[in-house]
């Protein structure tokens, strides 16, 4: 095997840059957590790895840019996929003007709309899980995703993104969220209303939101 260079040690996985069968690739390895019960640890790592590999390919078929899965090794909780060269959206946002910010989030909204329409939820929509490559926006990290047409799961997906915006990009969160919804509505149409009603319900259900219950 070719030389591997560590590009990122995340909370859950290590990412290595490598050449695989002549292609520039990324190896994602979900690492063992010694603080976790070994049975639980194995279960979490293998189910998430298998789910992620499936969802990456399916999302791509729905027209959502994602890395191409080259190889899957469930026993070691490893995926080899195509390398996407570009900055995570999180790093780019501070330098964006309002117009491109709105357009970017509208694009994200339409991608998430495509996923939801096709029966997938991402499960972890943060700006660290989006990569800008020229004018394409790639979604990565599907390990917390699911196959579902369920209103609740769709609502949670959007609720979590809104919350992530509020904690990490609070100064632009409202504006970005509006952009997101406009793009989402462009794909989901009439269904958007039901989803947004559920998003608000989930928010009120949470601990301590005033005006709730």
């Amino acid at each position, binding site marked *: 095997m070719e030389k591997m260079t560590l590009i990122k040690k995340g909370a859950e996985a290590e990412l290595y840059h490598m050449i695989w069968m002549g292609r520039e690739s990324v190896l994602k390895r979900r690492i063992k957590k010694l603080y976790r019960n070994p049975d639980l640890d194995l279960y979490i790592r293998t189910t998430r790895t298998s789910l992620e590999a499936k969802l990456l390919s399916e999302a791509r078929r729905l027209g959502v840019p994602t890395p191409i899965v080259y190889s899957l090794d469930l026993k070691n909780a490893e995926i080899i996929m195509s390398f996407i060269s570009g900055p995570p959206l999180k790093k780019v946002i501070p330098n964006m003007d309002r117009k491109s910010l709105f357009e970017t989030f509208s694009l994200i909204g339409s991608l998430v709309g495509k996923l939801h329409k096709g029966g997938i939820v991402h*499960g972890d929509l943060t700006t660290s899980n989006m990569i800008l490559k020229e004018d394409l926006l790639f979604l990565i990290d599907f390990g917390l995703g699911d196959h579902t047409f369920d209103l609740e799961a769709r609502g949670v997906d959007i609720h979590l993104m809104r919350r992530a915006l509020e904690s990490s990009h609070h100064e632009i969160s409202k504006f970005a969220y509006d952009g997101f919804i406009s793009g989402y509505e462009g794909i989901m149409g009439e269904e958007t209303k039901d989803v947004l009603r559920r998003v608000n319900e989930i928010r009120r259900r949470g601990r301590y939101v005033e005006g709730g219950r």
Partner: protein
Amino acid sequence: MSKLYVMGIESTAHTFGCGIVSSNGEILSNLRSEYVPAAGGIHPREASQHHASKASATIRQALNDAGLGLDEISAVAISLGPGLGPCLRTGATVARAIALMIKKPLIPVNHCVAHIEIGRLATKEDDPLVAYVSGGNTIVSAYSDGRYRVFGETLDIALGNCLDVFARSLGLSHPGVPKLEALAEGGKSFIPLPYVVKGQDVSYSGLLTMATRKIPENDPRDLSMSLLEVAYGMLAEVVERALAHTEKPSLLLTGGVARSHRLQRILRAVCEEHSARFHVVPPDLAGDNGAMIAWTGYLALKEGVCVPVESSYIRQRWRLDEVEVPWRR
């Protein structure tokens, strides 16, 4: 400037507390009286009656222990929320009365902010990521731009609530968590239970339901071990993600469940992997107490934060990230 003394009153849930701190961060006294229900969980009205009956003696003792008279108190801080309405109203009534009587400012304090601030004071860690876990709250938070932002939280019930209710279902008496942990020590085989992490958030209600359903046909030691491993593992995962995301240099574990040794061990291991310092609030300041309200009240007083008695409403669902914390700017 001469020393100031601030009195803090806490009554958001089962504890009525009164603490007194000085402006240089000394805790002069920290008295509490806990309502323990005869059976079941907290009954808000009964808890508030308990608080009303214990308030006077608790406050008197706090003053005695501090060696101070009421006339030496510079301000009264009150935990206005979040919490149970009847309990909050009792504490607020007492605090308002004292503030009016001694003609000193009344300072509104958010209970969650207070758990964070007492942890910062006790551990001398300036800017940690915070895991605040108790019977009523499960929040992963860090300071950014004027407020404590919420990076992860429970979507339904709190970690402590989940463990307490399960402990009661096993017939363990209050306090349930240490007994549950002792029982779990004897656990051998892991029983699969729903592990629910959604983005940066956790959900404990399905886990509690499933664990409770499995009581009849399983060894309580295995079940307790499995429940704790799953519940703490979920928290550890979102803490780890928030550590990686915020790149804070340290983690502060605070709130009543911070006393859990197993949870401490798990989170210490998480910190080691990310080269972050790990701190736990001291056990006597982990649960709800008046000193944390007093100290946060002092920080707010310095910034000129106070509230007229007539508009000192309680706020049952007052979110952590709605509170401005000007002393951190």
